[in-house]
């Protein structure tokens, strides 16, 4: 009998003090077989038995970014079967245009190698493992990337290198551009996955370039210089700057002047610039987005082109995260060459290359898709920001991404990250929405939350909005009542309540049955 399998990852208990995990399975229900006990003993020795990389935290899954997902996984919202479940607003997916794609697929059976129309290609496609990729795939991607940028710039198919999603692309670039112990500068707030993608197996460091809400989180030259100098002081060699444009989690994009400033900076320091343009197609204001490719085209002598590299993927613009279509586009011949060799570790399935090649080389479809997607995203985005504004919840003004950067600073008891985490747990357990706390994005200021809006249908949007509005309303009512109560209360009762609250374990407080807002003591007073 083979040994029992490990429990699914998301039910592990992470021994961190900062992030209290929703402990979803009571300890007693895990039966410990003799084998398991032996495994546990072995586990204690694993820090030598396995590598450092295998036993450190570099996988990043101890971040609250993933804790919310766990809450969702155990209690997922469903209109009919679980209408009070948690709504997933922590996943940046684009689900708004599948009808268009499905229609295309239905009309193009030859794009699949499993249909009678496309089957005669099966053998050739199945055998093709050249890391250059199918030529038609590379052309189609170059074509799509160009059209997403309003055909304002062309891309050379020979510079297109495949990777295992953008995840693989970032890791590959880190392997190519930096040695172990060297660093990339990254403006905060940034996508939590970067901590894993750029650092885990590469040993490369990330140094934050701190951005502030006071100027809408724009990247300033001062912040860049500051970060660069800090690295120098710590004896860390900076090899590059990584920006995400449009930004995750902000949903904003860089204006041309800022891009030029950044390019000037990296050129002067002679370091690389990696531009993750994975959200390029989600920009709702057409023709306003400026890609780094356009900057190079318009100002060819602005920098050494060998320093510029673009990461792209179909996961966000097309909504194909499962297909693992990651792209590295580099203006540096050597990087193209080396990254291509490394792509052996993460090639795109030729079955998928073949389908994508057919789809993205059809210009009518592509142009219409880009336009429709843009419109639907804009509509969705506006719906949210409008409704939320009505209840006094603001967000950073943005015109891109599959999310917006919500300002909940005024809901925090104190302007601290502890308060942010406490409030976040409330959002999950009471409002039943999984949103992502700004601290998991390394935001320097507590109270900001990333809220995704493109991964659900219209009906779910309404439910989510209702819940938020109810919560705001209730909070206001409670604030009024509590203020009234506190004025008339005896001092000893207050002390008693506080003692009771602090002596309970946080797990109890998080459960729906008991929360400070529903305290039996408060209820008794009504």
């Amino acid at each position, binding site marked *: 009998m*083979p040994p029992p*399998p490990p429990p*699914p*990852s998301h039910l*592990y208990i992470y021994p961190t003090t900062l992030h209290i995990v929703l402990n979803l399975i009571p300890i007693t229900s895990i039966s410990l077989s003799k084998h398991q006990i032996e495994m546990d003993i*072995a*586990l204690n020795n*694993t820090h030598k*038995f*396995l590598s450092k*990389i295998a036993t450190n935290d570099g*996988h990043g*899954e101890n971040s609250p970014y993933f804790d919310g997902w766990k809450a969702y996984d155990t209690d997922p919202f469903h209109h009919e079967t679980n209408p009070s479940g948690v709504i997933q607003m922590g996943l940046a*997916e684009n689900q708004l245009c*599948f009808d268009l*794609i*499905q229609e295309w697929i*239905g009309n193009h059976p030859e794009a699949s190698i*499993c*249909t*009678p129309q496309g*089957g005669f290609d*099966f053998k050739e496609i*199945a*055998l*093709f*493992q050249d890391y250059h990729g199918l030529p038609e795939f590379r052309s189609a991607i170059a074509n799509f990337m160009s059209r997403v940028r309003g055909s304002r710039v062309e891309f050379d198919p020979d510079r297109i290198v495949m990777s*295992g*999603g953008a995840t*693989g692309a970032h890791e590959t670039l880190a*392997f*190519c*551009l930096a*040695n172990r112990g060297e660093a990339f500068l990254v403006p905060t707030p940034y996508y939590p996955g970067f901590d894993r*993608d750029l650092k*885990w*197996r590469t040993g490369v460091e990330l140094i934050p370039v701190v951005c502030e809400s006071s100027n809408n989180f724009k990247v300033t030259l001062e912040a860049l210089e500051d970060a660069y100098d800090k690295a120098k002081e710590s004896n860390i060699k900076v090899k590059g700057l990584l920006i995400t444009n449009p930004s995750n989690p902000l949903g904003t994009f860089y204006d041309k002047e800022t891009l030029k400033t950044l390019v000037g900076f990296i050129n*002067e320091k*002679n*370091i690389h610039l990696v531009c993750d343009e994975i959200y390029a197609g989600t920009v709702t204001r057409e023709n306003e987005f400026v890609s780094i490719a356009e900057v190079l085209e318009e100002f060819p*002598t602005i920098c*050494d082109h*060998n*320093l510029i590299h673009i990461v792209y993927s179909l996961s966000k613009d097309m909504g194909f*995260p*499962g*297909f*693992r279509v990651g792209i590295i586009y580099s203006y540096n011949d*050597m*990087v193209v060459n*080396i990254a291509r*060799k*490394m792509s052996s*570790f*993460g*090639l795109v*399935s*030729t*079955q*998928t290359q073949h389908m994508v090649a057919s789809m993205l080389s059809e210009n009518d479809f592509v142009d219409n898709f880009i336009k429709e997607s843009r419109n639907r995203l804009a509509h969705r985005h506006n719906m949210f920001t409008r409704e939320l504004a009505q209840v006094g919840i603001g967000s950073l003004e943005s015109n891109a991404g599959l999310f917006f950067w919500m300002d909940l600073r005024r809901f925090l008891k104190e302007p601290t990250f502890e308060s942010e985490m406490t409030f976040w747990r409330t959002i999950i357990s009471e409002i039943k929405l999984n949103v992502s706390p700004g601290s998991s994005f390394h935001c320097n200021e507590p109270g900001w939350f990333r809220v995704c809006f493109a991964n659900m249908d219209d009906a779910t949007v309404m439910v989510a909005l209702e819940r938020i509005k109810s919560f705001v309303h209730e909070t206001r009512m409670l604030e009024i009542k509590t203020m009234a109560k506190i004025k008339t209360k005896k001092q000893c009762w207050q002390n008693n309540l506080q003692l009771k609250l602090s002596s309970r374990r946080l797990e109890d407080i998080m459960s729906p049955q008991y929360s400070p807002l529903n305290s039996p003591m408060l209820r008794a007073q009504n």
Partner: protein
Amino acid sequence: MAIEIVQPSVELSKIALSETHGEDSPYFAGWKAYDENPYHELHNPSGVIQMGLAENQVSFDLLEEYLESNLESANWGQKVSGFRENALFQDYHGLVSFRKAMASFMEEVRGGKAKFNPERIVLTAGATAANELLTFILANPGDALLVPTPYYPGFDRDLRWRTGVQIVPIHCESSNNFQITPEALEAAYDHARSMNIKVKGVLITNPSNPLGATIQRKVLEEILDFVTRKNIHLVSDEIYSGSAFYADEFVSIAEVLESRNYKDSERCHIVYSLSKDLGLPGFRVGTVYSYNDQVVTTARRMSSFTLISSQTQFLLASMLSDKEFTRKYIKINRERLKKRYEMIINGLKKAGIECLKGNAGLFCWMNLSPYLEEPTIESELAIWKTIMHEVRLNISPGSSCHCSEPGWFRVCFANMSEETLEVALSRIHEFITTRKQ
């Protein structure tokens, strides 16, 4: 004002600048010769015949036949939701149906002699990624894996390039048909220790590439005892397991572990892929199967860098769980490969060339040492160049596989039609005949 570029270009990393990607090896040089002048029955009958690529092209008709009769399961159907769900699915656990199908297929390949738990299957984009991923998990930079020679040239890249891990060879000799001996294992281990290198595991390929032979059960037991004694890992790359000509001649490490009641199994890990047995290298379907829970968890997390396209998982899930189909496929595939093998062995024998007795794989291990000027690598490469340019065959020299004895060549036979194989054999025959004169 535009900035003048006068500074030297920025450095890339040491990894980027190193040659550990391995592409300067003759293994790849031959491919280039082929690419420039590829054989074609009609259009280029005097071109280079590719015998350096271990591809399995003998059983595609079976796959195509299956797809033709099972269209609904291979395609998403008419509903939007079918496509959408598949396109969105990026969970690194993989499609449950696909994981189950892989476990089932691996069991079928072993004739049901071993059981595989789908929860221990971790999906990666090809065995290339699986081997690198395992290396990251089992060893630190500077540590070593012991690998028996001759071995697949790709290991130099897969195990070493980005990981910083070293390979220390376990030398195997023709005198005992290149079998791994306990003495060779100890010698390799001691050699590593003498260089102050920490050994973290042994990596074997069973059936072996390039030998084209299965590892005997007795040897597997000895290797397992060795790694247990040294408290190190054992990785068994069983990518050619479905290519053993006789089902009962292949013994998987899984069977040995089962017979030991899985004692000490947490040091064992299996790598598999569909690239050879099913002939689907383009689809990038690899797997790590580990008996170690922490390795499974960590490998799964790492697989984020190299997931299998959900489109491909979906396509293969139903096919691989269709036991009637897989049994038929595995049986017929074995028979066809055996037939090819016999064809090439007999053809070479007629030309006076001996090969290692093989019983698996997509290639044979040919012995040209009697034809070398001198028993040196230089002579081996000289004859290899001659074969490439004059005989116009791309075969792989043993030195690129780190063979300790010069004169051996890996010759692939499953990536071409029978007619092309006949042409290749007649060319060899002519070459040897001419040389003898």
